[in-house]
């Protein structure tokens, strides 16, 4: 029966990302979703029936499908109650996360770290949270048909990834609706991005391990009324995001903007500049300029009617009292505009004219035609990935953030990684001046030990 199910699943599923499917484990409220994930084997589907679940889900196995079932309008809801850090974390390859309503997690709604060949589809993710959907360090990913809102940073944030499609999502009421950061080959298409501080951002940021951001296509999106006042914490990297901007291209290269409706963004339609225009973190390994951009035919309506203060001053320096469709510092190389007479611009005198008939429509997907290699991560890699994904939300090395600094943890557990691994599964309150640490028992024992080993034996700053 299992073989038949596998064969049937392979035949029905034409998606290149799916490798193999096995058994189906059904979770009925109030059962634990994580318990089912823990029992699941590679290729299994975990179906979650409607109900409200209060847990963090961690998927570090390959080819697991987490499938929420919506029955008569009732959803499976993953609710962090404002107490848990993260909703769904995945580091396995070939993971599919779909049909889940994720809300009220302090950190991230759905996050993947180092996962290849993943799909995050048909979910609802509500903040407040850090990132609603956050795949990072992955290749061949699909983020589609999600409704995301109320993130303190980007609602959909693709970080340091390759070959990612971001399609048909609604992203709203966040600092940035959709962002790709230091990512190569991405397609951001047919999304509805509205009521954020900034609509869509394609960025090459300083101080990250990946030093390039190239070949993003922003196409056929509705980028409407992104005028929310910036509510990021002071000093945060997103605190510099100016309100009222439809699309920001910050340092990224070979970006194409085509076929979008960019409307009612009070500051600017498009802002195109070098990284150092907003980000002052030094990084001499990186070329900060935004070059080889193609601003093709888009529809700009009623942008720039009431620019935010910082942009207003810049526009005034350029002799403008209102915002424009395209504002650029003019530092990049080989940028072009198609039909420049149709848009108002500042700083674009060195932009060339795009070749007649230039279009990105030949590119139907940024994902590779077949699944990419899915390497098995070593224990050391899992330790580092999990530390970054889970621990750094509350801890830094030598300062108190929310929890104590890691130097303190290292001193307490020196030479005792298993003791540390055991403790983080069921933490007890050690200091009255610090909040209680949520249990990390959703992490498998071997992952907890890997994190403990990393903290005690490798982490040095």
């Amino acid at each position, binding site marked *: 029966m299992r073989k038949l199910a596998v064969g049937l699943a392979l035949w029905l599923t034409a998606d290149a990302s799916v490798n193999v499917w096995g058994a189906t484990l059904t979770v009925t409220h109030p059962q634990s979703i994580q318990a089912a994930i823990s029992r699941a084997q590679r290729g299994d589907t975990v179906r979650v029936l409607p109900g409200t679940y209060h847990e963090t889900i961690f998927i570090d196995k390959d080819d697991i499908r987490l499938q929420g079932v919506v029955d008569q309008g009732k959803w499976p809801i993953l609710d962090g109650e404002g107490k848990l850090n993260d909703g769904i974390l995945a580091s396995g390859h070939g993971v599919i996360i779909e049909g889940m309503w994720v809300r009220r997690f302090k950190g*991230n709604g759905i996050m993947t*770290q*180092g996962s290849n060949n993943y799909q995050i589809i048909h979910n609802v993710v509500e903040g407040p949270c*850090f*990132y609603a959907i*956050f795949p990072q*360090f992955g290749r061949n990913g699909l983020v589609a048909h999600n409704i995301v809102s109320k993130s303190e940073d980007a609602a959909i944030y693709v970080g340091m990834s390759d070959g990612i499609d971001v399609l048909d999502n609604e992203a709203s009421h966040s600092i940035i609706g959709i962002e790709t950061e230091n990512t190569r080959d991405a397609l951001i298409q047919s999304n509805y991005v509205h009521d954020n501080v900034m609509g869509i951002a394609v960025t090459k940021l300083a*101080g*990250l*391990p990946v*030093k390039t951001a190239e070949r993003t296509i922003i196409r056929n999106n509705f980028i409407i009324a992104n005028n929310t006042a*910036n509510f*990021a*914490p*002071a*000093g*945060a*990297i*997103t*605190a*510099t*995001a*100016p309100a009222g901007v439809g699309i920001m291209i910050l340092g990224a290269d070979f970006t194409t903007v085509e076929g979008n409706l960019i409307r009612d963004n009070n500051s600017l339609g498009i802002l195109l500049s070098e990284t*150092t*225009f*907003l*980000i*002052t*973190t*030094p*990084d*001499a*390994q*990186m*070329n900060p300029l935004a070059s080889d951009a193609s601003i093709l035919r888009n529809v700009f309506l009623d942008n720039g009617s009431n620019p935010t*203060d*910082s942009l207003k*001053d*810049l526009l005034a*320096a*350029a*002799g403008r009292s209102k915002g424009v469709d395209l504002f650029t510092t*003019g*530092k990049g190389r080989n940028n072009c505009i198609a039909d420049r007479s149709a848009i108002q611009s500042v*700083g674009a005198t060195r932009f060339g004219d795009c070749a007649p008939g230039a279009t990105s429509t030949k590119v139907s997907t940024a994902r590779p035609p077949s699944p990419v290699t899915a390497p098995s991560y070593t224990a*050391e*890699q899992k330790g*580092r*990935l999990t*530390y*970054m*994904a889970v621990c*750094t*939300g509350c801890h*830094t*090395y*030598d*300062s108190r*953030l929310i929890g104590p600094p890691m130097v303190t943890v290292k001193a307490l557990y020196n030479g005792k990684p298993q003791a540390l691994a055991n403790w983080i599964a069921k933490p007890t309150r050690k200091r009255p001046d610090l909040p209680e640490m949520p249990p990390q028992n959703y992490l498998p024992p071997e992952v907890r030990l890997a994190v403990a080993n990393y903290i005690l034996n490798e982490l040095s*700053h």
Partner: protein
Amino acid sequence: MRNNNLLYPALLATSAYLICGMAYGQTSRIPDSASDAHYDCPIPDSGEVLRQKALGLATATYDRNKLGCAADLWGVLARQAEASPEVQIQALGVITRYLSEVNTLWDLDLYGIHAPEWSARLQHATPLGKAIEARLEKLAPDLPASLASRALFDLAWTAKQADTAAALKVSGDAVRQLKLATSREKAVQGGNAMLALAKLEYELPEFSGGDPARGVDTITEAFQLAAGNPGVIRYFAYVQTQENHPDVAARALKTLLPLPTTQGDLQQMADELLAGRDLAQRLQDKSLQKLLADKRDTLLAAHHELLTRAHTAANLHGGVDPITGKEY
């Protein structure tokens, strides 16, 4: 992107006009980090003891508390010597150096978790500098060193200021002051004035006064005049890289190698060697990258007090590359 021992990178000033979120006094992820801005700084009664202490602490550019105390002490010295332009200029230089270091620490604090501390430090030191600036404007308004030091101070204290209009004005005024200063004394402030001017010219958008071609000329001239200034060398190499002259950039970076590392602002030297190493990586010159890295490693091994500027992970950013485990 560190500059030199007394001046603040003009590049950061050009970005100041969009740093709209960094208003002082707002909350951050470490809400009590402002208390880390406090440091003990007893002020000696004796004038000479005070002066020697101020001089000594000003060399501790790797330690923000010592440097902050140096700024305080130089503020006292400047009040005590109100009629001396030389003391005012030296004091303003130390305060600018301190502001510059705090700005750098803020830049490296990727998610601003220590923002209250940085804000508090800037708020404390800026008025000291403004008082000195006001005196210099009366005492020696047209002296090249006075013009240069006032411009560099203004660029430093406005770098993290939320008001875009004010930052833009400062940038414009700084360009004028630095042009005037360097027209009268080309190598004023050891080439740092020309360096700051070059950055403003090269980095500012043209609609707000930038002139990239002029910036290339200015930094080229600075490189010829101040060949021992690591900040000048490294920025010249960066500009040549941006202008697609990698061979010229690499040759320039090589001139960092024979510079002495036994005196002067060693923290700045370490920072410029780091940036030089990274620029060599960008140029794909592995041997030069190694030479610069080795020189820096030797310096750091001999001076453990120097800051390595290593990334610390916080809020899902920073730290080592989680896939390779390496620094980047």
